[in-house]
């Protein structure tokens, strides 16, 4: 009898341990599962949060005109920020993390990818002839801009590469007269050549020796010639053209369209951003057309020489609105007359100012 009891005790002990181990294992597995799931959710959430914060920063930077902002992104030093624009929709975010931000409103011009501890955000108003929207440029100190030529815009870019208010806002810009002997600055991740002569970079031309050993995606170029921008990508040791696109702008200092071409990684990014601007112009010109009519009938417009000046305004604004609508639907083919009409409205507005009449803008 004693023998039987002892045998049962021997069986009971391992059974209890096996039971405890199994139950413990199941419980442990459950909590490990919860932790893993939570970590995954937290990573995705962090990505989404950062993308939302980026969106808020972009909104604020685009809203405040002509601002230069530095955003510390040292926490994202190992991550890559990407920017894409298709069918008038910009998508940006952290590669492989969280839900990206989709923005159909702000014309945003940026390289395809940025991996940096700092982001540099700059906004400039797009005027045609009144303010249509603010262009937002996003870049980083890890990108070097190489300026070729002696154009006034070269001097302007050099001056604007630093900010009076934001000490940390420093664009990496170098000026050269001889691109072939240019040696790139060490520590930079990518290089963009801005050729104001329209001659230094040609399709099929040789990429500067100092940049040849870099990966194709690290080097790009844009040239300006006869009111158009031509975009180039590096293919081995030669330049390959992505094509030309007209620049619809009234010119002047700090021309938002020129800088949009400078900061766009590709032709597609530039054209997509411009498309967004023209979609906005359709509505802004509608507002100004209605304002013009209201102003024409206002007491201020009845004094002195004002009625004569105002008589031509509604027709001009109506035509500009029509052109804007056409341009927004068939960009860039139907945008040519926009610039001419904008010039006429600007001239008339200056006359209204001079004649002490209420101006349109």
């Amino acid at each position, binding site marked *: 009898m004693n023998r039987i009891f002892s045998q049962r005790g021997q069986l009971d002990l391992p059974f209890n341990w096996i039971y405890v181990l199994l139950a413990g294992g199941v419980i442990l597995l459950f909590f490990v599962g919860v932790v893993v799931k939570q970590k995954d959710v937290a990573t995705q959430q962090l990505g989404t949060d950062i993308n939302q914060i980026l969106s808020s920063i972009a909104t604020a930077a685009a809203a405040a005109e002509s601002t230069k902002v530095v955003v510390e992104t040292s926490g994202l030093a190992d991550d890559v920020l990407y920017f894409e624009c298709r069918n008038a929709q910009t998508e940006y975010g952290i590669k492989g993390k969280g839900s990206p931000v989709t923005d159909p409103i702000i014309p945003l011009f940026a390289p395809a990818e940025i991996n940096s501890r700092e982001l540099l955000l700059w906004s400039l108003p797009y005027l045609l002839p009144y*303010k249509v929207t603010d262009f937002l440029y996003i870049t980083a100190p890890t990108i070097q801009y190489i300026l070729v030529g002696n154009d006034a815009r070269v001097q302007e870019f050099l001056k604007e590469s630093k900010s009076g208010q934001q000490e940390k806002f420093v664009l990496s810009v170098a000026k050269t007269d001889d691109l072939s002997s240019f040696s790139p600055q060490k520590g930079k991740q990518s290089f963009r050549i801005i050729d104001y002569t329209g001659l230094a970079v040609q399709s099929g031309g040789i990429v500067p020796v100092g940049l040849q050993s870099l990966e194709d995606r690290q080097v790009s170029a844009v040239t300006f010639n006869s009111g158009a921008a031509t975009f180039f990508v590096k293919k081995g040791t030669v330049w390959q053209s992505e094509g030309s696109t007209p620049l619809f702008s009234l010119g002047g200092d700090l021309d938002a369209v020129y800088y949009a071409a400078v900061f766009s990684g590709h032709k597609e990014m530039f054209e997509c951003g411009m498309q967004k601007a023209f979609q906005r112009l359709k509505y802004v010109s509608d507002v100004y057309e209605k304002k013009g009519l209201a102003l024409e009938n206002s007491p201020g417009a009845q004094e002195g020489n004002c009625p004569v000046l105002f008589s031509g305004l509604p027709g001009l604004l109506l035509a500009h609105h029509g052109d804007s609508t056409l341009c927004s639907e068939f960009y860039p083919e139907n945008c040519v007359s926009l610039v001419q009409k904008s010039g006429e409205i600007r001239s008339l507005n200056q006359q209204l100012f001079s004649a002490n009449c*209420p101006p349109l803008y």
Partner: protein
Amino acid sequence: MILKKTKQGQIHITETIAVLFIFFVLLFFGLVFYYKYVDVSAKEQLAENLERRAVDSTTRFIFLPEVQCTQRELPPFPYCLDLLKLSAFKDVLSGDALDEYYFHLFSFAKITVQEVYPDPARSWVVYDKPKIDYSNKKVTYFSAALEDASVSGGAEPVVHFGYVVMEVYS
């Protein structure tokens, strides 16, 4: 002997059931606590997002080229809205523009511009896209100068004072 053995077995089974019962009760409480925590966190996150959206929408509206004064600033007021443009923009939004374009900017929201001086009875509902079954609503206020070029003579506009009421829904 047989009776003793059966009793011992019953005690074992009861013990096991009791342990399992307590384990599942604890697990149940743990899960309830966890889901409650997740639910509260999600609600807090939603409230925070709504607040952020309210601030973003107000910033967007104040600097909207469609309503902003063309001089941008009208000292001493740093923020200024053009009443002629505001009325025109209101008309533009009464068409397809709201759903086609401006909904991407303001989403479900109501934007009202209220004049305070000289005529507090004047107000303009510029954008109105309510969410019928909204779960939360956030209201923010922002003061601004209101420029009226329609009532003055000459190039100098009359300046009124008011504020923007931004109501956002989620």
